[in-house]
């Protein structure tokens, strides 16, 4: 078609540039009027050649001469063919939807930006951001951009489709035909190029081999392109397949980001290489620092369980001044060894029945862990009473050492009993006709059946051969004992009743006298009895007075009475009244006159404010303080050869006296063997370690010893119940037939995770979870 057939439209009118709107209207009008060949003499007008849809399917040719403005062919239609006869400004083919645009020169920035269909052929180089945001719509052929030279910077940013071809002929940047940072954000399309490049966004795009199909397509369309720009002569130059390269967008699945060195590789090849073997602190420590799991076994446990069997005392045993291992006896009961349970007590006391079964306020029961949970303590009196049948173990043969025991009461008999069991020879002296001290002489028969006491006294006699009764001793005789005996134990008790110095004090009967005589019914209390001093002995007086016929019994005290337990209960049952505070002014024929002037009528007034020891007969080498003999922790007096126990040392319970006897005997045995053994007193177990939930709190009394044994939590001593084996989530605990008691529970450290469930479940409080102090592996 010759130039003359073109409909000419000038961008000037009357020598003045017309605005883009007017030129656009002119072009649109010409097309509407049927013009299909247009030549536009442009003067920088915007958007020339786009939107020529009014021609329908008929091709429209637009030739642009002069200075084409920005965005020629923008929003172009497939029917449109635009030929720009010189260089072009920015955004050629912007949002092109099908037009073919030829630029016979270089093109500016933004070429083909957002183009979706059509072709842009450039006969030179292009500026920055060419082929950016291009699309590919499946309904149409992909858009194409052909560049003869090189692309400017940021080529193909966010390219989402289409094909770009960069031929690299007479490039503006021959060392880098793709420009700086091409294909950032590219998600679709491909780019053929010829010539060197300086990198592209490998996170978004990848270089791929040119397939035969690709090559066929390139060659075929290259001809079209070269024809369009009138450079057919380059065909040979551009037909060297080896010179071409192809870049395509990565698929979303391929977008793995910039390949990075793994940290493991960095550590091995960079970090440790620079710092040395073991990294930053490899020179300072050899501790294994390799990762460990959160839940660990063996030495990596933070805490480890320990089977602390018998490491702590049960509260009952701890509370017992005699030191009887009460829980041990219940264990034997549970194991069906009732005889052993009974016999065991004799190792500790010669009076298991008399004291534990009848006379003791049973401190063990008061201390019982079960009280903490408002549960009934295990009833030890049942076991005590059964002890009447306890059998003495085989006694050791005599060592030849002789120990004199002055006083045959509970303290003296206890120390003699223990000394004999240790293989030495005790010799007991007492002034009374009957051994047993106050148990025999003073304590009412209502509280201790005579046959029980006598049986136990007989048992003692079988063990302690030498008991000399009715044998008063003075200081000289005591002194003389020192030469005949290795040691002397003073245990003469407290037999000097205390009296208050009020007028008429001679009218008062001492409790000691009253009780001694009442044992043989040798005193008549009359109808009305006033007892000054409302302690337990006062209660015994009240009970006995009632038994002997008294009707009105009053106990008075200067403070709230300290009496407790069975004595108090029995006195109250006898109808005795307790009054306090009452201060005695005098004792008259009428009775007790109080400082208030009130008279408490009495046929007999009993004074019961305690007894003091008689220390007059003691050798001078024995120090007496405040009326009591001064001793050290071993009950040794200031004379190392003389010990003192019982009420001579401090007023106490029968069990205190018996316990003191045990301790003194142990001390003497130590001395005979060389020297005192260091004390190995164990701590009492923490109540919180014991778990009573296994026991029924509604058990209020115990039928027999078996019932007692089953309900005892065995604080501090393993019950051998195997609960720990069952609870351990790791099956790390097992029972082993070894150890002192014939069994022990052991932990497999390689299974245990240190959860402490064993400690949490143990009814006896044996297991403890302690910090793992083992060194690191």
């Amino acid at each position, binding site marked *: 078609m010759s130039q003359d057939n073109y409909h000419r439209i000038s961008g000037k009118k009357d020598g003045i540039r017309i605005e883009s709107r007017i030129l656009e209207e002119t072009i649109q009008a010409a097309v509407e009027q049927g013009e299909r060949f247009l030549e536009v003499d442009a003067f920088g007008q915007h958007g020339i050649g786009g939107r020529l849809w009014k021609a329908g399917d008929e091709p429209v040719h637009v030739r642009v001469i002069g200075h084409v403005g920005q965005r020629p062919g923008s929003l172009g239609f497939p029917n449109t063919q635009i030929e720009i006869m010189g260089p072009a400004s920015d955004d050629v083919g912007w949002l092109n939807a099908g037009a073919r645009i030829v630029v016979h020169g270089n093109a500016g920035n933004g070429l083909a930006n957002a183009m979706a269909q059509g072709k842009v052929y450039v006969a030179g180089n292009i500026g920055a951001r060419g082929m950016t945001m291009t699309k590919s719509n499946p309904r149409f052929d992909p858009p194409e951009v052909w560049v003869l030279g090189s692309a400017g910077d940021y080529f193909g940013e966010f390219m989402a489709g289409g094909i770009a071809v960069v031929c690299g002929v007479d490039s503006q940047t021959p060392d880098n035909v793709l420009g700086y940072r091409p294909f950032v954000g590219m998600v679709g399309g491909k780019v053929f190029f010829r010539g060197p490049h300086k990198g592209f966004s490998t996170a978004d795009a990848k270089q791929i081999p040119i397939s035969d199909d690709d090559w066929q397509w390139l060659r075929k369309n290259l001809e079209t392109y070269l024809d369009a720009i009138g450079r057919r002569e380059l065909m040979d130059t551009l037909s060297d397949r080896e010179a071409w390269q192809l870049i395509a967008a990565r698929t979303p699945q391929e977008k793995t980001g910039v390949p990075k060195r793994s940290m493991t590789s960095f550590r091995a090849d960079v*970090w440790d290489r620079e710092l040395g073997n073991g990294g930053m602190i490899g020179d300072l420590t050899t501790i294994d620092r390799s990762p460990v799991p959160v839940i660990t076994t063996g030495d990596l446990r933070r805490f480890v369980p320990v089977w602390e069997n018998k490491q702590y005392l049960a509260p009952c045993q701890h509370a017992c001044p005699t030191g009887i291992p009460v829980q041990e006896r219940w264990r034997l009961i549970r194991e069906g060894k009732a005889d052993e349970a009974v016999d065991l007590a004799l190792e500790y006391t010669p009076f298991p029945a008399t004291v534990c079964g009848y006379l003791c306020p049973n401190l063990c029961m008061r201390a019982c862990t079960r009280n903490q949970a408002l549960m009934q303590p295990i009833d030890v009196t049942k076991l005590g009473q059964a002890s009447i049948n306890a059998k003495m173990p085989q006694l050791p043969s005599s060592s030849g050492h002789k120990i004199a025991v002055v006083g045959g009461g509970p303290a003296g008999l206890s120390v003699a009993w223990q000394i004999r069991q240790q293989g030495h020879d005790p010799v007991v002296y007492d002034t009374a006709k009957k051994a047993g001290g106050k148990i025999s002489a003073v304590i009412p028969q209502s509280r201790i059946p005579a046959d029980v006491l006598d049986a136990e006294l007989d048992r003692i006699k079988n063990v302690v051969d030498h008991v000399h009764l009715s044998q008063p001793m003075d200081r000289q005789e005591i002194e003389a004992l020192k030469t005949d005996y290795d040691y002397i134990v003073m245990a003469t008790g407290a037999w000097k009743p205390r009296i208050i110095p009020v007028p008429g004090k001679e009218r008062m009967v001492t409790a000691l006298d009253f009780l001694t005589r009442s044992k043989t019914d040798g005193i008549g209390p009359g109808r009305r009895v006033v007892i000054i001093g409302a302690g337990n002995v006062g209660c015994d007086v009240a009970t006995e007075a009632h038994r002997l016929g008294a009707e009105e019994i009053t106990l008075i005290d200067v403070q709230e009475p300290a009496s407790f337990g069975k004595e108090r209960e029995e006195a109250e049952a006898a109808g005795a009244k307790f009054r306090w505070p009452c201060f005695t002014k005098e004792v008259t024929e009428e009775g007790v006159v109080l400082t208030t002037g009130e008279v408490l009528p009495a046929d007999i007034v009993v004074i019961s404010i305690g007894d003091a020891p008689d220390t007059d007969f003691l050798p001078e080498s024995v120090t007496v303080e405040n009326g009591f003999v001064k001793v050290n922790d071993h009950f040794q007096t200031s004379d190392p050869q003389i010990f003192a126990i019982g009420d001579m040392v401090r007023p106490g319970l029968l069990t205190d006296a018996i316990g003191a006897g045990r301790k003194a005997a142990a001390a003497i045995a130590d001395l005979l063997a060389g020297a005192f053994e260091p004390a190995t007193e164990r701590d009492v177990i923490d109540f919180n370690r014991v778990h009573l939930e296994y026991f029924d709190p509604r058990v209020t009394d115990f039928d027999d010893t078996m019932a007692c044994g089953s309900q005892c939590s065995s604080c501090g001593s393993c019950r051998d119940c195997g609960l720990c084996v069952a609870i351990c989530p790791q099956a790390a605990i097992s029972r082993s037939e070894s150890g002192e008691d014939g069994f022990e529970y052991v932990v497999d450290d390689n299974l245990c995770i240190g*959860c402490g469930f064993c400690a949490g479940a143990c009814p006896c409080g044996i297991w403890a979870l302690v910090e793992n102090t083992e060194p690191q592996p």
Partner: protein
Amino acid sequence: MPTNGRITPSTLSIKDLPWQIAWDKEKCTLCGRCAAVCPVRTLELGVFRKRVVNTDITVSQASTSTMSVYHGIRQQTNPATACVGCGMCSLVCPNDAILPLRCDEADKLVYHVNQGGAPRRRGGRRNIPGGLLDRIKFIRISMLTDPALDAGRHEFELRTLLGRILSPEENLAHLKENGWIPPVREIYPLIIGGMSFGALSPTMWEGLQMGVAYLNEELNMPVRMCTGEGGCPPRLLRSRFLQYVILQIASGYFGWDEIIHAIPEMKVDPCAVEIKYGQGAKPGDGGLLMWYKVNKLIAAIRGVPTGVSLPSPPTHQTKYSIEEAVAKMIQSMYMAWGFRVPVYPKISASSTSLAVLNNLTRNDYAAALAVDGEDGGTGAAYNVSMNTMGHPIASNIRDCYLNLVKLGKQNEIPLFAGGGIGKTGNLAANAAALIMLGASGVQTGKYIMQAAAGCLGSETDRCNICNVGLCPKGITSQDPRLYRRLDPEDVAQRIVDVFVSFDIELKKIVAPLGRSTSLPIGMSDALGIDDPAAAERLDIKYVV
């Protein structure tokens, strides 16, 4: 055993505790893991009674009561072993049967944490959630005005300068007269703030350093980490990685003789020296590394015998005035590396910050000023110091910057802000806000512990037991049984993740401002806040 004993004033019930263990008997398999992992050993196996009363209303038979026993998990209630809410029990529970929950009622434990007259000490951060930084918005979004940039597409050089930047005239004069100009480092604007070797476990510390080295050498991000006060491992001192390290000197001077001995053998200079005068978490208070934490490793690095307590007094001992305190220390530390290494002080944010800053402006050696705000974290401090002492960072850094503006010295003494940056996870936004308020860069510690190592601590008083060395994640423990839970490689990888994602977010914020090669330091016209008083105080826009 359910105690029926007497109560004491500090006898608490579960209801009184801030953290309550919800345990599901149905789901529990009694595997023991929760009890094994509990750092404070509050969890234990409980033995429970279950009583059933079997009634017979017809009275044809007597009603009976039967008792059975079951086992389960219970929490202890005494203050010493009360649950800290760390949630490790939930982490290890195979059946999701256990979870610490916050009490819906006011905490009563708080009244009993001072047993024996010892006020509460803990690790972590102010127990006051939130803060002003999260309320600052970036309101300047350029679309057509400034050259709008695309964070994903454009290239950014997010760098800041650490060092005294003198005016060209002054620089020339310095060079001419002294033959010396102050050294300046171009570094990444997010610095890992000072956390000592000792406060942190060896695995954590090595992981952080490794991550920093990776960022520098593999990703070309010049990230720097401050040692905190606890010295620096000898090998690190003699490696090229030292250039990524800011060595801290503080009132205890621990580890400095080891550093001095290493100077002749150093391959590179350290990035800088930070002189710590104060810490945002516990302003005006010192520190004490307890003797039982001073094991062989820590002792070697700090240059002390094992098993001795290491006090860092609240103040440096040989300084008696601000002139001395600043000038003397800065001079001394410059001399160590032949005046090639920038030296700057770090103070806790305070109403006296400006006095320090003004002093620094008169000292050409002062390389920067780091200011640590009240929301800073620590491994151990008195609760009262942490909760109530200190100054918010935003207004303090703003005052400092505007003061420099008044003096015409803005950006000549770079300001570094710390304390609570990223407190609620908004690391980049908080950092950008502080930069636009005038900071040249920010320091962060707690965020790093949370993001890079899974620290469980929170401002609602979760965990926060760093001070006793029982960190269940192994971050602040010196017990290998605990710190071996942490793999340094994982920490390093998370550090990389944190910085790379921070970088993207920071770009998202600064790109609309048209900034790609210089940080918008002091560009406060980009900031707005929905509180008129705060807006006025910070001299930024009030927006509603």
